């Protein structure tokens, strides 16, 4: 190991220790504040005081996660979007992890910081007393193991070896202490495997319930469309045909009118049925798969589309349909609202995750609260345990990224 490398390692470890000392002391201060706010919950005041404090603690632990993660050469996932209300905050596992970490961060952090401090200062002190023994007043010289350093002989014979020993100790121990402290932080702040599994189960339960809901709503919609539309039209056609049959001998003119009406009714019924079928599963998707269907959509788009599609292999029908729906909806939105001159649609598959991205060069500023378009996309994807990321700063560009697992 080079001298420069050693020096850098020492410097990093010293900086880490110093930061630990600072955060540790801050933790020790934060504990009583949080406890007090907790007690104030009895008087309702704490209910308003705690959430900002907990969110702030979250930002702080995220900093700690990044710091420890960097030291250990891995990433420790931090908080995602935080809820605003106290019960929801407290229900989060990540909040509980933060609180769990706090005392450890306080005491161990402070201890580690002090140790780091000592390990940094000791070699400097020892070197100083060996080289500058003559600065000390003659009455009270610096001592090494009881031997006073009052001559160059003593300084070189005892002072220098001591400085060497202490330096070696610092070089070896300082990084180790920092690593140990980072490991403890990481262990407390990272999700445990059990937590990860439980959280996964929770999201799956939610998305499964969403899927069942979405499926139920879809069935009801199809039933209503067929019942109110197609079925009613068929009844009216049958009635007209029956009437025509009765009028056959008496009034040929009336028969002609009834037949024409029956035919128009049949045409309407077919148009309507086509509409229902299209919303259930677009026929072009059945015919040409996702790639062909998206090419057709791209060709039909008012705003020119640059479409690139990677190797997709076999994808389950509901996932294809959802991806098709989202891209179609996104392109409709682009045409309606963005004022874009071109759109890029990229669909790829990364092992068993299907990724679809729609990026336009329009004016941005998509507000999910206003339109139902994006929430409709989210609902459709939530049913498949997929996610949708929308970034749309004012002035553009708008970027919509769909991620859904298509593994078997």
């Amino acid at each position, binding site marked *: 190991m080079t001298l420069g490398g050693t020096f850098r390692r020492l410097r990093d470890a010293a900086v880490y220790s110093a930061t630990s000392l600072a955060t540790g002391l801050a933790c020790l201060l934060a504990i009583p504040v949080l406890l007090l706010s907790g007690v104030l919950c009895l008087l309702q005041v704490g209910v308003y005081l705690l959430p900002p404090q907990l969110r702030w603690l979250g930002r702080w632990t995220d900093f700690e996660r990044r710091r420890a993660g960097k030291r250990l050469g891995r990433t420790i996932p931090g908080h995602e979007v935080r809820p605003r209300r106290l019960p929801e905050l407290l229900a989060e596992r990540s909040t509980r992890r933060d609180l769990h970490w706090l005392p450890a961060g306080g005491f161990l952090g402070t201890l580690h910081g002090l140790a780091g401090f000592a390990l940094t200062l000791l070699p400097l002190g020892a070197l100083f007393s060996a080289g500058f023994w003559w600065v000390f007043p003659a009455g009270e010289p610096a001592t090494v193991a009881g031997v006073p350093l009052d001559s160059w002989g003593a300084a070189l014979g005892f002072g220098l070896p001591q400085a060497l020993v202490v330096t070696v100790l610092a070089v070896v121990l300082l990084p180790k202490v920092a690593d140990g402290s980072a490991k403890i932080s990481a262990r407390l702040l990272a999700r445990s495997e059990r937590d990860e599994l439980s959280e996964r189960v929770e999201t799956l339960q939610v998305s499964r319930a969403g899927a069942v809901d979405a499926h139920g709503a879809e069935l009801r919609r199809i039933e209503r469309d067929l019942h109110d539309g197609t079925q009613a039209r068929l009844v009216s056609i049958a009635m007209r045909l029956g009437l025509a049959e009765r009028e056959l001998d008496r009034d040929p003119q009336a028969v002609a009118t009834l037949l024409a009406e029956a035919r128009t009714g049949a045409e309407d019924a*077919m*148009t309507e049925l086509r509409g229902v079928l299209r919303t259930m599963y677009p026929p*072009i998707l059945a015919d*040409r798969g996702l790639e062909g269907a998206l090419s057709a959509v791209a060709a039909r788009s008012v705003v020119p589309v640059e479409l690139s599609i990677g190797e997709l292999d076999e994808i389950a029908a509901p996932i294809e349909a959802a991806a098709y729906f989202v891209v179609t909806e996104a392109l409709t939105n682009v045409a309606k609202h963005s004022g874009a001159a071109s759109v890029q649609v990229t669909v790829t598959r990364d092992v068993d995750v299907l990724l679809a991205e729609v990026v336009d060069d329009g004016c941005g500023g998509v507000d999910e609260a206003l339109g139902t378009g994006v929430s409709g996309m989210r609902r459709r994807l939530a049913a498949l345990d997929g996610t949708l990321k929308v970034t749309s700063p004012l002035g553009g560009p708008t970027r919509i990224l769909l991620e859904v697992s298509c593994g078997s």
Partner: protein
Amino acid sequence: MRIVIVEDNVLLAEGLRHLLTSSGHEVVAWVEDADAFVAAVAEHRPDVSIVDVRLPPTFHDEGIHAALRVRRARPGAPILVLSQYVEETYAGELLSDGHGGVGYLLKDRVARVEEFLDALQRVAAGGTAMDPEVIAQLLTRSHDPLAALTAREREVLQLMAQGYANGEIAGKLVITERAVHKHVGNIFAKIDLPPSDSGHRRVLAVLAYLG
């Protein structure tokens, strides 16, 4: 006319056969899949074939592929494709070989017997019959360059794209053929297309422009 029907649904095939024979046409063969279609065309050399898009074994878009196969073997063989839904992509594929004698209609159109037979006649004669819905899809897409057209010119353009000749357009819009001729001239001038009188070439020009 001597006609081949390619349709796997017995109900629809019977209906078509009934409609055609009662209108004085002869159904020389009724087959259910693409291979049989190719063989039937080779054997009977029909005036026109009516093909369903969805055919066995996969019930996807075999009808389109079968039509293209037949026309590769016999360029210009008149084929009318019927479908439960229309997709402009398919229309483009059918028209891509540049020969006339192509039709692409929704199955619903069969209900208007006279218009359907008319379209069939047109296809058999080497013309074109495009479903109004295909044209509508194309028109919604590239509306900007068409902004210069008047409402009447748009109507004429739609009918022209479906494959109608000037005389038929005049009849449908209840105007004189001379007026139609003038509108067509204006349309071609406004959208910068070389004027053309031959039926399917006219459609191709319009569709190529819209596409």
